[in-house]
């Protein structure tokens, strides 16, 4: 008898859970990088539009793309980097952007837009800019130099990480040897491969996400990572600093795109437009420490942010930055080199 009572209680709990949550508000499915939007802004958007926003996260462009191809359809807004947005567009996976629904596009910074792949914003809208570089602990590395050679330093053996991202990490190897990070020359790629394999013997892990906490908790003292991620954890550990390697590195546009099978296209446009509202964009930039290339929003940024050389790098630094491009069929060369790196002892 007691058992029946228990089953009854569990049934009620289940019913309450199922019933309680299924109010029929419109739902916006978003696929984004982790920690890449201020949560309060999402809540504000939900209140404004009487909808629910469900965010799933991915940790690399490739994994996001693979998941979509495997049948994860039904996202309304996705945040790929621009080279991946181009691939998705070439694969006919995206809907055209409707500029009429996005009055805030006029706020975008033309200087940065010139660097973008989809300048006309036909299928993508820029979201944030990020620079890939080196995060490190100033107190533990007094002899730090802003150079990729730091990954060879015996002082960081077993306490540094490289990104688990084919294009970024091979790109770092290419840059360290003085080549373009979009090189398709077999000889240059072979040099980059040997460079990364040399680093691999010194690192603790190839890692895209854990490096943030790892650096903050001083588990790692040198990490290859994205500018905003490192700036975000500066708040937790004041010894953290970010450097742009002097050999050059990559700058990435992360875009917002609407996939072909989106269920709520109108709401997706509203969301994109909302994120380019100057005040919203400024608040988001302050929170996630990446730069939203929205010129109208700069006026709302704090002085500290406006003077941050990582967010607004001086011209000579910008000249050293390169955008990762889609290489089409040549991509197979990178996959092969990446496999050799992963398998090397």
């Amino acid at each position, binding site marked *: 008898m*007691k058992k029946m009572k228990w089953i009854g209680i569990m049934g009620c709990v289940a019913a309450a859970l199922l019933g309680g949550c299924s109010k029929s508000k419109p739902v916006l*499915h978003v*696929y984004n990088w982790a920690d890449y939007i201020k949560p309060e802004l999402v809540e504000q958007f939900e209140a404004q539009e009487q909808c629910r926003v469900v965010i*799933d996260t991915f940790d690399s462009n490739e994994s996001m793309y693979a998941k979509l191809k*495997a049948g*994860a359809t*039904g996202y309304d807004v996705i945040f790929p980097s621009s080279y991946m947005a181009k691939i998705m567009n070439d694969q006919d996976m995206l809907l055209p952007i409707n500029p009429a629904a996005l009055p805030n596009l006029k706020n975008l910074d033309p200087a940065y837009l010139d660097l973008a792949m989809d300048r006309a914003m036909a299928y993508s809208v820029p979201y944030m800019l990020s620079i890939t570089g080196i995060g490190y602990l100033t107190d533990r590395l007094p002899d730090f130099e802003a150079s990729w050679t730091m990954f060879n330093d015996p002082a960081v053996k077993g306490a540094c990480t490289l990104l688990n991202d084919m294009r970024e990490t091979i790109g770092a190897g290419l840059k360290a040897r003085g080549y373009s990070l979009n090189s398709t020359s077999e000889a240059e790629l072979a040099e980059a491969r040997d460079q990364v394999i040399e680093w691999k013997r010194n690192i603790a892990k190839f890692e895209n*996400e*854990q490096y943030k906490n790892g650096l903050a*908790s001083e588990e790692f003292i040198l990490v290859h990572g994205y500018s905003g991620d490192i700036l975000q954890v500066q708040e937790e550990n004041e010894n953290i600093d970010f450097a742009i390697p002097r050999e050059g590195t990559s700058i990435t546009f992360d875009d917002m795109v609407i996939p072909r099978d989106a269920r709520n296209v109108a709401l997706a446009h509203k969301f994109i437009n909302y994120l380019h509202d100057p005040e919203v964009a400024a608040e988001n930039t302050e929170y996630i420490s990446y730069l939203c290339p929205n010129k109208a929003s700069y006026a709302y940024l704090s002085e500290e942010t406006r003077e941050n050389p990582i967010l607004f790098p001086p011209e000579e630094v910008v000249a050293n930055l390169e955008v990762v491009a889609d290489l089409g069929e040549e991509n197979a060369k990178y996959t092969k080199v990446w496999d050799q790196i992963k398998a090397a002892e």
Partner: protein
Amino acid sequence: MKRSRIPLYTTCLVLLFFYLPIAVLVINSFNASKFGGGWGGFSLRWYRELIDQREIWHALRNTLVIAFSATALSVVLGTSAAFALHRFTGRLQRLHYTLIYTPLVVPDILMGMSLLLFFVALSAQLSLLTIFLAHVTFCISYVAMVVLARLQDFDFSIVEAAQDLGANWWTAAWRVLLPMLAPGIGAGALLAFTLSIDDFVISFFVAGPGSTTLPIRIYSMIKHGSPPLINALSVLLLVITFVLVWFSQKLTEEKIK
């Protein structure tokens, strides 16, 4: 005669090994210091922050929806499979037994991979439904094995007696057999439920938009989230586990009575 003490020492060491990480986790969940290097004072801060994490609650809801529905269906399929395996013999049941047994030993990653390719081949949309289908597939085998073990201790003459008294086979099965097997079916259901709640690898392969389950959420928290929040969440899960274990003990005790 002197007995070796090695078995005793091994047992104690292994139990220490089992509980040390869990104990550290529980203690750290009350530690005010964020990275748990030292003791920063007692605090309930992480539990309070946990309550504000709506992604966790959303994931928990997905997990429970799948666990309840997958358990319900797999109990029906698994119990009927156990009946079949117990009552009948022959080539068909040998094949049936192999099919029930193999998923128990196949590594998760193979099952996840094959189900993903199956859904790709069908061009199915990945969603809560695909996770549900995957979970039922591995739960059937566990339920069938648990119920089968109970059936082997069962005295079928009772069912025959009911039939002699005029009940047809179905009435006898429904009115006599099923109630007597209820504790076994309950234990199978509980096992299916906990396996479904805990599954990460298979769900990770077949999850789609908005169908993040709790283990998938925990995995991404391990990657980039705040460690003390995972500690606090783990302690909550531990408490739930203890309640479930206690509940299952109650079930078996009742059976003995």
